[in-house]
């Protein structure tokens, strides 16, 4: 490398490093602020200057000892995310797999319907879906939050792409060995699709953990709230709950960031589903 190229390379790396720090900056300030007195946050917001001596664990003590409602939201979020992952992976993988490996009448129609759902924003269906949920008596329940997410078009699309690359000879071999079509899927093909399950579990889990608008619409009582809905109720200018808000925000994000550090590959392939191949 010439000297000029080396200098240029250092400049580029420093520039990217600065930008990366800027991207992480809001989360770092969030974490630092969670150790500061909540009354200060309430008065001045996040400030540039603060003394290190005022940092303490009070917000966390408070949230662990006196904020039962926060843990109720946490539990709700965990249950809803877990159910969404299990159900949506089960159903979406079956659909995606069938679209990929079988020739059957109506296959193209169904694939076009999947793409159609992908194109119509959920927000447009919000009012009629809400009426449907009211009619079914499901308002303010887990099932109301989960149901519209169960067959996820993105996941169907992803599983189909993945299953297209599976060796079809295995299916024939399994058939000769007397395996039923369902056995072929559950015992032979689904295990081969494991990486796609990991990616979609993360996508669906993250989506559900962070989902806001739909739970806001169908959840009514404080004891049913998920974390984003619960935290948003604390986000008022007159709130005296900034301790729960700030420490709670950290504990909402941190588990996800830690998971990301371990399973980066799956996060990225899951979140960037789609026709990138061009």
């Amino acid at each position, binding site marked *: 490398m010439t000297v000029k190229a080396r200098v240029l390379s250092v400049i580029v790396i420093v520039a990217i490093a600065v930008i990366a720090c800027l991207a992480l900056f809001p989360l770092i300030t969030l974490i630092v602020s969670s150790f500061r007195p909540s009354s200060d946050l309430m008065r001045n917001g996040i400030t540039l200057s603060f003394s290190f001596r005022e940092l303490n664990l009070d917000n966390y003590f408070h949230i662990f000892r006196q904020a039962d409602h926060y843990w109720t939201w946490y539990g709700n979020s965990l249950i809803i995310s877990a159910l969404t992952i299990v159900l949506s992976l089960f159903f979406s993988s*079956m659909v995606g797999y069938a679209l990929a490996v079988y020739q059957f009448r109506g296959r193209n129609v169904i694939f076009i319907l999947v793409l159609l759902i992908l194109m119509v924003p959920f927000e447009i269906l919000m009012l009629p879906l*809400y009426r449907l949920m009211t009619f079914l008596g499901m308002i303010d329940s887990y099932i109301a939050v989960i149901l519209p997410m169960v067959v996820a078009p993105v996941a169907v699309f992803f599983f189909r792409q993945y299953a297209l690359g599976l060796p079809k000879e295995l299916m024939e071999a399994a058939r000769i060995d007397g395996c039923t079509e369902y056995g072929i899927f559950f015992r032979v093909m689904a295990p081969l699709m494991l990486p796609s399950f990991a990616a979609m579990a993360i996508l669906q889990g993250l989506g559900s953990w962070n989902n806001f608008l739909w739970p806001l619409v169908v959840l009514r009582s404080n004891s049913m709230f998920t974390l984003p809905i619960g935290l948003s109720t604390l986000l008022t200018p007159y709130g005296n709950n900034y301790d729960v808000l700030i420490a709670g925000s950290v504990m909402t994000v941190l588990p996800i960031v830690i998971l*990301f550090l371990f399973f980066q590959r799956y996060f990225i392939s899951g979140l960037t589903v789609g026709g990138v191949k061009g």
Partner: protein
Amino acid sequence: MEPASMPKQANVPLRKKRKRNLFFSKKVAPYVFVSPFVLSFLLLFFYPLLNGVIMSFQSILPGQTAFIGFSNYERVFNPTFYRALYNTSVYVLLTTILLVCVPIALACLLNSRMMKLSSVFRAALFVPALTSVIVAGVVFRLMFGESELSLANHLIGFFGIEPVGWRYGAVSGMFLMVILASWRWIGVNIVYFMAGLSNIPGELYEAAEIDGAGVLQKFYHITLPLLKPVTIYVVTLTVINGFRMYEESFVFWENSSPGNIGLTVVGYIYQQGFQMNNMGFGSAVGVVLMGIIFTISIIQLKFFGALKKE
């Protein structure tokens, strides 16, 4: 699953077996696999979509629903809706420009041979995508507080600018929403563009270098044209996400912003449908929004020539 053989059913095994075989046959299995999708499509997509269109022609009051023709649509195009549409359009325009140009530049830098630790930086830029809008909103609301001590006001103070009431002005309010969305989405788009870049054969650059092409020439004549499919995809995604936007506004103002500076089209649907209990009118706004999104998608696809390719 049915029990293999019960003594009482000894005289019907043949029919049962045939039924079983049909259920397990290669002809029927795919339909069993796709049945959950078909059911959920009908119940949770097709029916609500149809119902949404029907509702937009109705006046819906508790226990009393009546068809009122086009009168919802006649009332849709009012100043508040135009304000919402204006906000949403400005937001779409700004986020699209930011979320295409900046990620392309960063992806090229991360992908270049001069880069070290590229995956570490990519990960760092991706982390904001993991936060929920609410948590991101909490941070941004606190950073851009009204107090003159708040981080943002402190920073602009270095440049001699007076403290700003960020959430109370139309321009600064729009800035807050755009910056929040851009912060959260930039990493995802970088990953898209990096995937696109890795598909460009390296020989093209080598050939260009032999012909004496500079960095910028290579960028304009090789990188940009070959990134076109990814760019179309990212633009389409960003535009549609922009028109769906509601949460970025909610975290700053809940459901009522001063002078509707934060009102978006989806926010208007929410306000009318749930807060004013005017579901018919809200549905009409929804149908109009759907029309806008479809028109834009089609224009976009035509304009970029993606329809011809497939």
